[in-house]
């Protein structure tokens, strides 16, 4: 067993961290505003929008663990966690299904556009009545000649208001239950595909999200991903990548947060001494470190299992649960360590909490992760 990163892994982690700190490291976006196309192109220029896409299409050709390491560097160097999330969701929930299941006629063009940052993708799966349980999906796709006609509404689609491409899921065989679902990559310019207004969210303001409606939207059949009825498997596969790799970004955020807390405890003086000298403060930081390190080990192991093509369902669920719950707990601790200043928006500490709360909800709630873990135990 070897817990060290390879020299190559260390180098690309350091290279990406340096690039991100230089080019995306200072927050120019007022809190509450989403990322700009220029920021997206910068992320693409660094290689972040195509980390695990094939090199022949401009991607990095990385596996799950190396992708997670790069996203960790991204999250550590970039204070705009909403941008980190937006790029990660684009890559893992949208580009991965296109990489693995798109038809030859459209695959190269879509992957090239997504890797280069010309195409921003949004994952449109959730519906008002279909969240954790995708069984009641209501959106339909009816085959007519060379097209499918998509009809229905999606919600909580990250990146949707700016998206050039929607990766979406619709019922093609109603009697087949959750396996009657098919996946599609839908160019946003097609008539009948429309993104709704921005959601006003608690956190991750840097990532715009909203509803998407499809009204008699004719989608050429070559934009179907995989075979009819494979939508559920394609979605679960992409969620495996998202639940594992996307949370690398939160490891990075927690690492930056920990460094900020150490500096704060070391520099802030009360009662004539550094507050780090109070065990109530230093032990709180030690607890943050323990949560971060244990979550990181679980995440690296989950990604490693994916790369080894071993069974990873339970390992990924454990990792997702650990990282998301650590992010919330550590962000609450960080506010306590910063005291009143931590409560002020311009300091940036309370924002980490608002950006962390949704981690226990998206990509499968904590409750769903525990259900998966329990069921893998045979319970």
């Amino acid at each position, binding site marked *: 067993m070897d817990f060290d990163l390879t020299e190559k892994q260390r180098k690309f982690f350091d290279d990406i961290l340096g690039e991100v700190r230089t080019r995306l490291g200072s927050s120019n976006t007022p809190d509450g505003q989403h990322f700009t196309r220029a920021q997206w192109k910068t992320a693409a220029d660094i290689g972040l929008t195509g980390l695990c896409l094939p090199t022949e299409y401009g991607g990095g050709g990385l596996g799950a663990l190396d992708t997670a390491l790069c996203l960790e560097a991204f999250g550590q160097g970039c204070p705009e966690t909403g941008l980190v999330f937006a790029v990660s969701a684009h890559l893992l929930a949208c580009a991965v299904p296109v990489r693995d299941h798109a038809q030859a006629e459209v695959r190269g063009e879509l992957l090239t556009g997504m890797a280069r940052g010309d195409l921003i993708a949004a994952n449109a799966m959730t519906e008002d009545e279909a969240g954790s349980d995708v069984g009641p999906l209501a959106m339909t796709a009816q085959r007519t000649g060379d097209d499918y006609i998509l009809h229905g509404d999606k919600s909580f689609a990250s990146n949707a208001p700016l998206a050039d491409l929607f990766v979406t899921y619709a019922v093609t065989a109603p009697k087949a239950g959750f396996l009657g679902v098919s996946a599609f990559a839908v160019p946003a310019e097609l008539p009948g595909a429309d993104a709704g207004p921005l959601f006003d969210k608690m956190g991750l303001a840097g990532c715009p999200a909203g509803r998407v409606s499809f009204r008699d939207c004719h989608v050429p059949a070559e934009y179907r991903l995989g075979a009819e009825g494979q939508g559920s498997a394609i979605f679960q596969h992409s969620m495996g990548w998202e639940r594992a790799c996307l949370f690398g970004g939160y490891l990075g955020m927690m690492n930056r947060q920990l460094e900020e807390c150490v500096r704060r405890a070391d520099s802030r003086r009360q009662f004539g001494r550094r507050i780090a000298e109070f065990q109530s403060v230093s032990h709180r930081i030690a607890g943050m470190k323990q949560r971060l390190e244990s979550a990181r080990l679980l995440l690296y192991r989950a990604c490693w299992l994916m790369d080894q093509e071993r069974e990873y369902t339970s390992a990924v669920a454990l990792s997702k649960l650990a990282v998301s719950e650590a992010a919330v707990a550590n962000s609450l601790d960080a506010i306590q360590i910063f005291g009143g200043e931590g409560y002020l928006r311009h300091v940036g500490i309370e924002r980490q909490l608002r950006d962390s709360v949704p981690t226990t909800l998206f990509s499968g709630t904590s409750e769903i992760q525990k259900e998966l873990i329990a069921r893998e135990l*045979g319970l």
Partner: protein
Amino acid sequence: MTESEIRESISAYIRERFLGGDHKGELEETSPLLEWGVLNSLNTAQLIGHIRVAVGVKIPAMEVNPENFRDVRSITALVTRQRTAAA
């Protein structure tokens, strides 16, 4: 494990875990599991885990489709095929 033992293992698991014991004996080899809503995404993942542990056969994600998971008969055929392919 013979094909009939695989079939019985799958049937018994579905009866016990998803049908509350199926005391009325309604589950048949050709009962439409997807259409009846017996197999949803969570239950199917659990059944695949059972097949992995009890039969020693890993079901590839892309084989999880409506044809293969229509009923106990089709699931048994899938498991048998995968076991033969892996041998």
